[in-house]
């Protein structure tokens, strides 16, 4: 272990895909089931290549959050295997999770640059202070998301779009190679959404893989390489045109779906937006 950063997590297998799930099953933890286990995810199998941008769509309770927890490594599959760059998630520090804005305590006494610097904590290592390289990385990350001017602001004073960009900057400072975003565009106006998508374009040029959970099928169709349609199982996973078909959407959304198929477009009515 030499070089400026003592800790880089475990080595990546050069030929391994960014993400590979093989027959992954996950049980609901928060329910004491008398009639046998209930599964949040069943037989989930897929691969995501380096630099791909994937939208994960599905109804509430489809298992999007569970899938993210498995990828991050806070949950383990009850069956099957899930690998990141050829190894289980536990040793990696290259996975960044951008939380839903509602999950963050915006009154917390930290400035924007404090939050971005948090992304460096894994590389800095225990009992060490941030060095010049860490501050450089922090400022560069903020500049890349167009938030350099916000560095000294308390995070509570940010707009919704700025909040998301600051957390993306944190992922950049972390030198993440796999970024998971949970409903990042909810409640944002079009210019803010566009600014975030521009950052994702920038990430793609670096070969960073992006998984984004969303309810917005239009956005998924227009701006993503592939769409994963999830409802406990992978209903469909492929290019938008192949996935967004009436029959696959019906299988994913069931009764919550209203399909208007006059010119091949589908409209989803999904009554509530709280994810669990």
């Amino acid at each position, binding site marked *: 272990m030499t070089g400026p950063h003592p800790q880089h*997590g475990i080595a990546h297998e050069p030929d391994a895909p960014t993400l590979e799930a093989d027959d992954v099953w996950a049980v609901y933890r928060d329910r*004491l089931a008398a009639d046998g286990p209930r599964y949040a995810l069943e037989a989930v199998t897929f691969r995501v290549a380096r630099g791909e941008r994937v939208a994960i769509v599905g109804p509430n309770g489809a298992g999007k959050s569970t899938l993210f927890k498995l990828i*991050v*490594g*806070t949950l383990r599959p009850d069956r099957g295997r899930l690998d990141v760059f050829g190894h289980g998630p*536990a*040793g*990696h*520090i290259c*996975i*960044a*999770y951008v*939380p839903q804005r509602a999950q*963050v*305590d915006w*009154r*917390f*006494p*930290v*400035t924007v640059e*404090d*939050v971005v*610097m*948090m*992304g460096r*904590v*894994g590389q*800095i290592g*225990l*009992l060490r*202070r*941030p060095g010049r390289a860490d501050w450089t990385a922090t400022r560069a990350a903020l500049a890349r998301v167009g938030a350099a001017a916000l560095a000294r602001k*308390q995070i509570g004073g940010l707009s919704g779009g700025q909040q998301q960009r600051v957390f993306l900057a*944190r992922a950049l400072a*972390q030198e993440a190679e796999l970024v998971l975003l949970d409903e990042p565009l909810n409640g944002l106006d079009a210019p803010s959404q566009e600014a975030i998508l521009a950052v994702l374009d920038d990430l793609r040029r670096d070969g960073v893989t992006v998984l984004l959970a969303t309810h917005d099928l239009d956005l998924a169709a227009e701006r993503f390489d592939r769409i994963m349609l999830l409802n406990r199982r992978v209903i469909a996973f492929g290019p938008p045109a192949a996935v967004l078909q009436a029959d696959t959407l019906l299988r994913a959304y069931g009764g919550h779906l209203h399909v208007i198929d006059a010119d091949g477009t589908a409209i989803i009515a999904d009554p509530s937006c709280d994810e669990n």
Partner: protein
Amino acid sequence: MSFLLAPLQYDFIVRALVAAIIVGVVCSVLGVYIVLRGMAFLGDAMSHTILPGVVVAYFLGWPLAVGALVMGVLTALGIGFLTRRAALQEDTAIGVIFAGFFALGVALLSAGASSVDLAHFLFGNLLGVSSGDLLITAALGGLVLLVIFLFYKEFLVLSFDPLLATTLRLPTTFLHYLLLLLIAVTIVVALQVVGVALMLAILVTPAAAASFVTHRLPAMMAVSALIGVVSGVAGVYAGYYLNIASGPAVVLAATLIFLIVLTFSVLRRRSPAAEGVAL
């Protein structure tokens, strides 16, 4: 001036002041994490559950910190067990452990000690601080501050975004229990100053007041420590001049400062010209 100096002719007042200042700093700095992580109820429980350990150590002539640490660990493990294995809500689990251990502590005390001892454990005995007590207070307090300093960035990440702590592969379980241990040690440090019953106030009130006027963690810790020290000193003087118990006087001083800061911050929030002047 003689108002401030007159009490200092008594050595026990000087020792009380030094103890109050140390405790003011240590409790208020650690209290910032208790406030930010929403651990107030746990902090209250811990300050009560350490009682049986402290009482047993007291009877055996051991350092009180040893008994407190054992009980601190048992409390943390017990709550963890009830939450995970027995599927209780965390506040319910804390409540059960809190009441059970505290009752055990009071029962042990009532069996083997005078009512004066009981009052000292419950409400502190600031004027009875000995030089030996001061040494232990300073050593343990310094240890707590050192650990907070060493793990500053890790505790920051764990408090702000536990999931980030996991993705950065920080030792989250270790850090969580380390924080609980720090709380247990801090409670021992503060035991003589405020006692078990009012412990929570000195842990959360200065930090809560500081949260109104600061926007960064180091500033919040500094302001919280300042409020803790001022409360401690004011409490000792109030005890001397008004002839009231020092422990409650310290807590009342902290509460008064809290109310003043609250009023100040509410008024300032109403006047738009004052935007962005906080630390």
